[in-house]
């Protein structure tokens, strides 16, 4: 009974809180720019509206055009459920779940790209190409980060792995993961979620042709992914596991908020990087993770 209740709670957290983050980010940006900006709950309204709207399908699109977002959404949700939520812990945790998490995100990527290419549009093809290509570098960084965590903790279970060692390693890892977060969630400086230059976009341009409920799934999935990454980042660098229940929860929430604010600040203070500089940024992130790995290695050896 309690199991099911806990599970439902986690589900609720992921499903309900996720759309909050983009709202917060936008608020921060507006505040920095000195505007009032859209309400924090804007995304909730959008989702609700989209869920009620009809769908316009491209004449070329196959059923995969609707299945894609669905699968992607499920994949992200499943990945999220594998991730422990501070005191709540993970819905399901077993040896090697971290690998499953990484590959679930890959599945989401596959489906988004698939759906994007359904329409035979040049823009969306371009977006998909960028998505999968940058993912190659991001993947390297993520795997290295995971390797670091597992070498720190000597374990392959997320719950145990997210017991970070304070120090340089944590800092390096934090910066590295933050960069990966920006890249994977298509934020500035990798992508500009609210530009109107399709040529410069990745994620937004991939979903140009989506509409209605599928589009809602896409947006919600993106929000969940953002939340997932920030939670991962926070737990990877903050020693939350050592705290007591309430404190841990508070710390986690605070951390996530910090991350979101940081994202917002980055978006408002930095310009989008030119595309040829993107690989450079990602490589930097990868290298940061590698250094973190080396630190972890020495730490473990000592």
């Amino acid at each position, binding site marked *: 009974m309690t199991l099911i209740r806990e599970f439902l709670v986690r589900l609720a957290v992921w499903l309900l809180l996720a759309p909050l983050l983009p709202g917060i980010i936008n608020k921060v940006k507006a505040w920095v720019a000195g505007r009032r900006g859209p309400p924090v709950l804007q995304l909730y309204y959008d989702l609700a509206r989209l869920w009620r709207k*009809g769908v316009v399908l491209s004449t070329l699109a196959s059923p995969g055009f609707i299945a894609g977002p669905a699968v992607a959404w499920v994949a992200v949700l499943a990945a999220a459920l594998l991730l422990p939520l501070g005191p709540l812990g993970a819905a399901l945790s077993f*040896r*090697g779940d971290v690998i499953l998490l990484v*590959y679930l995100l890959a599945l989401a990527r*596959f489906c988004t790209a698939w759906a994007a290419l*359904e329409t*035979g549009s040049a823009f969306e*093809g371009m977006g998909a190409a960028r998505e999968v290509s940058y993912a190659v570098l991001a*993947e390297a960084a993520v795997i290295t980060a995971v*390797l670091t965590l597992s070498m720190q903790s000597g374990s392959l279970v997320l719950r145990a792995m997210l017991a970070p060692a304070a120090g340089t390693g944590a800092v390096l890892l934090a910066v590295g993961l933050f960069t990966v977060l920006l890249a994977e969630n298509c934020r500035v400086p990798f992508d500009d979620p609210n530009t109107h230059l399709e040529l410069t976009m990745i994620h937004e341009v991939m979903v140009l042709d989506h509409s209605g409920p599928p589009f809602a799934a896409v947006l919600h999935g993106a929000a969940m992914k953002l939340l997932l990454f920030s939670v991962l980042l926070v737990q990877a660098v903050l020693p939350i596991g050592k705290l007591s229940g309430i404190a841990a929860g508070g710390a986690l929430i605070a951390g996530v908020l910090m991350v979101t604010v940081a994202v917002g600040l980055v978006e408002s203070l930095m310009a989008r990087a030119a595309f040829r500089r993107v690989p450079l940024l990602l490589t930097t992130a990868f290298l940061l993770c590698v250094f973190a790995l080396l630190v972890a290695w020495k730490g473990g050896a000592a």
Partner: protein
Amino acid sequence: MTMGWLMSFAILVLVAAALSGARLPRLWLALTVTGTAAFLGAALWTLGGGAAWDWRSGFAVGNERLHLRLDAVSAWFLALVGVVGGSGAIYAREYWPDGERPESAGRGRGWWSTLVLCMGLVLLCANGLHFLMAWEAFALSAYFLITLERERRETRAAGWLYLAASHAGTLGLFAFFSLLAAGTGSWELGPMRDHPEVAPLFWVALFGFGVKAGMFPLHIWLPSAHANAPSHVSAIMSGVAIKMGLYGLIRFSGWLPLPEGAGWVVLGLGAASAVLGAAFSLAQNDLKRLLAYCSVENMGIILIGLGVGLLGLASGDTAWGRLAMAGALLHVWNHGLFKSLLFFGAGSVLHATGTREMSRMGGLWRAMPWTASLFAFGSVAISALPPLNGFVSEWLIYLGLFDAAAGHTQVAVAIVPATIALGVAGALALAAFVKAATVVFLGAARTQAGAHVHECGWWMRAPMIGLAAVCAFIALAPGVVWPFIQRPLAAWNPAWSVDDPPAPFATLGAVQAALVILIAVMVVALWLRSRTNGMRRALTWDCGYAAPTARMQYTGGSFAALASGWFAWVLRPERRLRWPRGPFPRHADFVERIPETVLERVIGPLSDVVMTASAWVRQRQQGHLPDYILYLVAGLAAMGVLVVFGSMR
């Protein structure tokens, strides 16, 4: 003794099939399917815990007693031979029928059964001499299958390249087996860890079998052969034949005493094959070439697993080594299954459109939904994405890698880069297969070739569905497969205790099943919701293009440009670009060619040197009799000098 009967039955049936192939297609199909089924049955029985079958003949072949042995390791591969051999035979009935190929269909059938039989014998032979015989026979029958369509020049060239490379490997095996026989004093094969002096032979074996396995620098023959062979042949080549090289490596790395650093080298080669294979496959514009290079990548993944296993063996500690080895073995099956599935799919595309150029296709899903969905299934599986089987085996390998790294031991130096390489290769493969599946099946038809096509019939569809089903089974019930994996592990190296299955395997299966259900629910829900909200079709919006044409679509080349650009140092793409000029540009074109780097940059120059020598020698023989006498005298002098110095010492 039932096993003996079963085996002899299978062999006899396949021989009969090989003979009946030319004239009696129906009988041939029945016999081949029966024979392969018998192989499969025998293999599963052995894997299911049956005692290893060991048989010595009374008579001698080539002055050596026949010695056949079916232990778990052989059985593991034999099962694959059975599955792909049988389904390929069914597929060929429609794909390569007498009606369309009157000249080569019969030959194709005969050689097919021969190939299957010889691969089975390679797995069974426990005597070096007969192993070599079966090996070469298998290589030759593969050659004849590749060149079925021998009226095409490029097919002949590809076939010759394959034959040449394979013969180089075979001569390596000549050296390997004769050195082994010279070392141990007999052609008999078996565990020989008590002969430390034969340890260096592992390197010879690595070359000999590596050529066949398509290991990275030795893969030169693979792309063109797989691309130009008939698709069912490509399927068995890529799904099973190259696994024979792997079988050799696994087999003898289990039997031979291993030299210092064997594991490191294998791991390194595996990592290189994985990343570069994936990069090459992403860059290809020929559908079957893309699949072929992806085989190189998957061989790399398997070799990574094997390498970790060897490292584990070397460092005595067994847990992670065993995991990675298990992953490698499982990936052998998985890759065999979904790669054959993909080649079958590519075959039906080729059959429908008559071209392998992806940039000529597009929008095929409408005409061939079955092929499209099965190909998509295969793409997800081969990109090692959950909830399919590719992920299961890679997951095992990852477990092994991570555990090894967590040990903070010396091996981590090799393990960490390998892990990262595996991750990168996975991402690249994903990109490659997004490209393959979408460019071929989605969007609008780019040329007339893609315009009016037909779905393949049931004879071609059924094998694909069957293979997909097996993939799904492995994906959803890995716990069932696990005990089967343990037997080859135990047979591979008895030193390992393999009683405890890693608990999460069951969990993983459950998770994957749950994932499937969730996906189904969500898809249906979204679909219903959209329908209730009302769906209408319209032109692709694409930011308001009034009349998007098929030529505005992203092509495969442009899709891959970004990522393959990062590998330009090895891909060395050759581009010819004519910019549009003036207000009304008359012509502008862009041609890109991805060369076979190793072949053209390494083997080419080498062969040039040899051919120069050959030309020089020919120049010496221009029909002048005095010269000939001079050579005779020179020979006399040389022999004299040799004798004088020889007798001095």
